């Protein structure tokens, strides 16, 4: 215990160790936050990406904060639902119900939003929901521009769920004599190269309801080219979920693999040296067979032929690394310790084999074990990501490697969608670097010969 305290104090002398530890701490805190706010099953369900979950989000939208750095402001996506009225921000939705004398009701839903961007949005979609089954309510949609023009966009009847994609409205296109979205937003002064008119727009949805139990709500979805903190991918999924959940997955994989391999290796090496004879011979033979087996190719085979489950891959990784090269290093040290007088003493007072192995042999190599354990973590984190980049990532769990693979295979590099690759890559790099920095410092603290270097 004392020794650990002393080593820790010495570790604090290395700035790189402190940086590494702070980074690891932040990673752990982010993981905990993620696991609490987005439960595992929920994350997996969302990441499988059904249209119901993600229809509101634009495809391959760049993170919203990039507007801060660009001259030409791009439209940020947003959505407004009349079921959840909002009146106190730059985007508003109000719903008014007016009951007439004959019992019918007039519903007016008004969306108001401030549009200060230099480019047109991808699309605007209006989703209408009604529980009026017998009579299909007729919905009228009107558009008010900042300069006071009023455009009657469409009127259509809705049964249960109606979808109105403005970009695909050919009638509106004929009225406006251009693409609907451009026609709605363009500044009338800009004829040849249309640019959006900045200011406050309004879209008004009106309908008449004839049944007393009937209701109508409408959801306004503007698909811009930007969205959120991390942007979205080709399946409209919000990348923050994948990026956040990638952290606990990567940490779990890296730490479990590193712990699993080093500790088992240690115990096996101790058992082999202590008992000697055929046990030792067997362990050495297995080590040799294992060294002839190509590790990564076998993982590729397991991932393709059996299962891409991340936990199976973790198990295989540990299994194939237990009898690695470090077993020889541990063995060499144990060979020396085995002859030490205090082991002789323990034996003479009748300590059992197990006691000697666990209490007297293994603790002696802990100084060698700790740096090794920490330096192994990044390798395993990148291993998992590497398998995912080959398309062998877990089919359900969101991981950074899978996001990189999605981006690569859908041409993010060709189309310049760099955020999609850089975000998971940065997180991978930071995680790997954190453990590497700490590991390097630990190596120097626990390895007296390196200390001066």
């Amino acid at each position: 215990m004392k020794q650990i305290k002393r080593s820790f104090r010495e570790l604090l002398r290395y700035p790189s160790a402190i940086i590494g530890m702070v980074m690891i701490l932040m990673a752990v805190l982010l993981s905990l936050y993620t696991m609490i706010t987005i439960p595992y099953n929920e994350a997996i369900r969302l990441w499988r990406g059904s249209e119901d979950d993600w229809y509101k989000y634009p495809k391959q939208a760049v993170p919203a904060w990039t507007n801060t750095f660009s001259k030409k402001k791009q439209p940020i996506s947003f959505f407004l639902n009349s079921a959840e009225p909002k009146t106190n921000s730059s985007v508003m939705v109000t719903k008014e119900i007016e009951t007439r004398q004959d019992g019918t009701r007039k519903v007016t839903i008004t969306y108001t939003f401030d549009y200060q961007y230099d480019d047109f949005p991808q699309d605007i979609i209006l989703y209408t929901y009604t529980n009026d089954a017998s009579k299909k309510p007729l919905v009228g949609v009107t558009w008010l521009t900042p300069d006071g023009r009023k455009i009657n966009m469409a009127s259509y009847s809705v049964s249960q769920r109606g979808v109105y994609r403005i970009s695909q409205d050919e009638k509106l296109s004929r009225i406006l004599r251009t693409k609907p979205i451009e026609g709605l937003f363009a500044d009338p002064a800009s004829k040849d190269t249309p640019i959006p008119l900045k200011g406050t727009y309004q879209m008004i949805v009106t309908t008449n309801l004839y049944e007393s139990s009937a209701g109508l709500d409408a959801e306004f979805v503007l698909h811009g080219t930007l969205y959120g903190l991390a942007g979205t991918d080709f399946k409209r999924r919000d990348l923050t979920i994948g990026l956040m959940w990638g952290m606990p997955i990567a940490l779990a994989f890296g730490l479990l693999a590193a712990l699993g391999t080093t500790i088992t290796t240690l115990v096996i090496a101790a058992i082999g040296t202590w008992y000697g004879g055929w046990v030792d011979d067997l362990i050495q033979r297995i080590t040799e067979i294992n060294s002839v087996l190509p590790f990564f190719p076998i993982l590729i085979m397991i991932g393709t032929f059996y299962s891409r489950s991340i936990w199976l891959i973790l198990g295989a990784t540990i299994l194939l690394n237990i009898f690695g090269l470090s077993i020889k290093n541990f063995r060499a040290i144990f060979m020396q310790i085995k002859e030490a007088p205090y082991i002789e003493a323990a034996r003479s007072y009748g300590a059992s084999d197990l006691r000697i192995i666990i209490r007297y042999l293994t603790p002696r190599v802990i100084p060698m074990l700790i740096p090794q354990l920490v330096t192994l973590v990044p390798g395993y984190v990148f291993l998992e990501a590497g398998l995912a980049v080959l398309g062998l990532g877990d089919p359900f769990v969101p991981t950074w490697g899978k996001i990189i693979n999605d981006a690569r295979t859908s041409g993010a590099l060709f189309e310049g969608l760099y955020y999609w690759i850089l975000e998971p890559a940065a997180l991978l790099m930071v995680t790997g670097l954190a453990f590497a920095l700490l590991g390097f410092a630990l190596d120097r603290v626990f390895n007296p010969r390196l200390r001066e270097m």
Partner: protein
Amino acid sequence: MNTDTKNDVRQPEASGQKRTSINSFLHSNSFMRLLKYSVTRLASLLFSVVIAIFLTILIANMGGYVDQIRLGEIREMVVQSVRGNTANRGLPPEKFQTLVDDLVYQEAHAQGLDQPLMVRAARYMKKALALDLGNALRMTSDSGSKQVRIIILERLPPTLLLWGVSGILLFFIEISVALSISRKYGSWLDKFFVSMAPFSTAPGWFYGIFMILIFASYFRILPFGGMVDAPIPKTTLDYSLSLLKHMILPTMALTLTSFFLNVYQWRTFFLIYSTEEYVEIAKAKGLSNRAIERDYVLRPTLPNIITSFALTLIALWLGGPITETIFQWPGLGRAFYQAVQFYDTPVILGQTVIYAYMLAFTVFLLDYIYALVDPRVKIGQGGSS
């Protein structure tokens, strides 16, 4: 049986004993010992290779599943050909079925698919160990051959070109840089390498993506991937230039992932050796830096350098499946990955068996090389009881 392989480090023997003639050496104890050691060592290594290949066969065959797929394919082929044959028109369904079953059985029997799993595995293994690699199931070489040997030989040059050239060059550059900065311990260059070392934790494919992003996608000055330009250049000069252009990014990625860490490790290694007493004495004697480096630092670390070099060479054989996939480089790593995707057991097996042989052979040779470069090492002596 003593199969322990530990090299015993001993004090150099007296010089008089060394001067024995070859003739007496051949009849001496040490020759017999060497022979006995070599035989047992070879046997144990071969045993390891056999077991490893057997395990690979079991994994690559999915416990017989791949053979099931092949049976299914055979049946499909037979049904197609029986249907296509006009002579079989109007055949009653039962007769049609028996005809198909017969033909499937014949074909399966000819390929040995009707034998038990272990027999099949043993047969695959016998062929693999004899390096009779056979034909691929689905893959074909660019020249159109189905022979595994030709497929592998076709993929070998790109791998050797990329990983070999960059790997070997990097290896020697790393060692010489490490030597020179170990002399300037504490200088800014030294500190630079120490602080850059952690960045080498990211693998080659990771930096590869960055390189593609920066130089291919953003600046558009280098190709995204592949080995040569799309219409293959006519003249040898243009071809080589195009090849070089395509090699820049992968080589940069490989450099970033290994260079700093390896320089750091070799430099630390050399530093440890240069604090030995005999180096101090050499310095006190007033020997030149070059002489000290050559005879007192490099010489005792030679076994480590050779081991590392040998392992670098063997790693070539596996290539880098991910890096080669990212750069669309038609090398062995990508070939292996494709073979797995195609469930092409013969190709998987062919590459694995060659790797296993090469590794075992290198491990065997290294013992002798150690003994050659380091007089303190004696082959086949000592070890545990």
